């Protein structure tokens, strides 16, 4: 178990170092920082001095080490476009994205898992069939179209919900939250549903496929043959075995949630990190792009590490060693 956890940890560190290197290469090789920081009137000597000061003449390894060290100390550098420190820019946008992503993920799990179980247990029922067709359409509609549809329906036609921005927010320290006001929740609903719907369809199909597979295994057939109550067969025996692979995929999905929040934030003008990233791409603001990359990968790796540990908690085969 220790070995398993350690192995996962090492893999995670590897992924982070690789992403950091990617971000560093972006920073160092794409777009010349000196050209970005200086104007036409700067003399070649000044440019050379600036290069030296910024350490751009050092060997790549030294530069990368410095870059990583800065990241670890929380020094993320400055934006080319706004000249603000990137750390603060990201921090001010982070709560918006995290709240949106978490609520969306919750929607997808709370609806997706029961729906998946239902359709797995009654695969031929009319409700199951229509739910399946629904999810198929769900995975086929681009997120931005879902957003447009919801805006059109609930914002424009019915006028029930706001269609852009975060609405009422409350500041708790540096964390600006929309979870504590009714207005904030009203603003959150449409973007969160937009973002969650796609994940929901994926979750449901996955749970369904896994559960149907588990229901065919020998140990379930044996449980049926010895008359274990159906309720226990379904929700104790089958469900726990279903959740093991499902949990992994849900961990991976969190990456999808974060990524698609770029689209959702763009549709709803939600002031999160995704919108910041889009702006930075449009203006080729390389430092912001590379920091965003690192932050996203960090969250992804963190979630997956948590999933791996959860795995150990659920599966005794990882927890208890064999002994005859």
């Amino acid at each position: 178990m220790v070995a398993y956890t350690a192995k996962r940890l090492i893999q995670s560190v590897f992924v982070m170092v690789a992403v950091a290197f990617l971000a560093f290469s972006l920073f160092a090789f794409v777009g010349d920082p000196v050209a970005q920081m200086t104007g036409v009137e700067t003399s070649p000597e000044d440019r050379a001095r600036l290069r030296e000061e910024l350490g751009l003449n050092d060997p790549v390894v030294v530069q990368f080490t410095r870059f990583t060290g800065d990241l670890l100390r929380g020094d993320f550098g400055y934006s080319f476009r706004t000249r603000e420190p990137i750390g603060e820019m990201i921090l001010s946008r982070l709560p918006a994205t995290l709240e949106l992503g978490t609520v969306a993920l919750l929607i997808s799990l709370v609806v997706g898992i029961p729906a998946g179980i239902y359709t797995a247990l009654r695969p031929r029922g009319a409700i199951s069939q229509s739910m399946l067709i629904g999810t198929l359409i769900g995975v086929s509609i681009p997120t931005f179209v879902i957003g447009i549809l919801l805006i059109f329906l609930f914002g424009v036609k019915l006028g029930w919900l706001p269609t852009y921005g975060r609405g009422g927010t409350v500041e708790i320290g540096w964390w600006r939250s929309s979870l504590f006001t009714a207005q904030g929740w009203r603003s959150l609903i449409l973007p969160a549903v937009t973002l969650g719907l796609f994940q929901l369809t994926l979750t449901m199909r996955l749970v369904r496929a896994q559960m149907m597979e588990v229901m065919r295994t020998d140990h379930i057939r044996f449980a049926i043959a010895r008359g274990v109550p159906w309720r226990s067969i379904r929700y104790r025996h089958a469900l726990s075995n279903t959740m093991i692979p499902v949990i992994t995929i849900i961990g991976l999905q969190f990456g999808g949630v974060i990524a698609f929040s770029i689209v959702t934030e763009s549709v709803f003008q939600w002031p999160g990190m995704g919108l910041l990233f889009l702006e930075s791409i449009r203006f080729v603001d390389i430092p912001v792009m590379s920091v965003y990359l690192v932050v996203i990968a960090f969250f992804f790796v963190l979630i997956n590490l948590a999933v791996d540990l959860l795995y150990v908690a659920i599966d005794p085969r990882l927890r208890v060693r064999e002994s005859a």
Partner: protein
Amino acid sequence: MLARLMRIEGVWLFARSPAAILAAIATVTIVAGAALAPWIAPTNPYDLASFSLIDGLLPPAWENGGRPRFLLGTDDQGRDMLSAILYGARLSLSIAAMAMTVALLLGVGLGLAAGYLGGRFDAIVMRIADVQLALPAILTALLIDGISRGLLPRAVHDDLRIAVITLAIALSLWVNFARTARASTFVERNKDYVQAAIMMGQHPLRIMLRHILPNIVGPLLVIATVDLASAILLEATLSFLGVGLPADSPSLGTLIRIGMQYLLSGEWWILWIPTVFLVVLVVAINLLGDFLRDLFNPGMR
């Protein structure tokens, strides 16, 4: 003849699945329409001389004020919507198909080799795949677009836009192929027919391509179908975000982005017709993918 055809399991299941038949018809129609766009579209939407502002914002032919010449109406520039959609679908589909092909070759090649060779090569490929997984498709695509903007002069970047988008989509999709190919190869490699081939001293390339590859096409075909759908979605999303294709050579996503401006006004057709078209295309392809998946996983039926 028909009776013999029906003995093939795939054909038999297909004939009994109305959804699969409908999806196949829709896909074939749209793909044919897109492929033949230059010959069947009423006008050429790239040719500025072929439309005029006078015809701008006309509704579809069946609406009040619509004209039979513009079956699906016109946009603000007076461009025929039907032609724009056919050409847009052509562009979307060719980018998606190209990206899917690149991803397929790259992913299957690496996955096959990783699964067959194992050891260090496998470890390296899978770690790269891990990193790629930490950067979801849309993020990768946006990044590559961003990088190319930084590296290339503006004029060159505009010229290479299609290539950049294709590459961006391909790079975000190859992992799927690689992981599937690797997992299936791993299973096949331990089967006795491969062991027999190794024992006989056959060339590794021959074993991979002639022995293993034909046995893993099933799952790869499913991935290819599903990924074609995601590639179309990804291209549309990128174009919608404004980092994809520009307005003068609009793909389906670009058309929808342009249509967004008319969300609140009465000209619904500019937004909703390309949207419905895109959704129908992707739904149809996904339905086919589902059918194939069920075909290769008999237990799910």
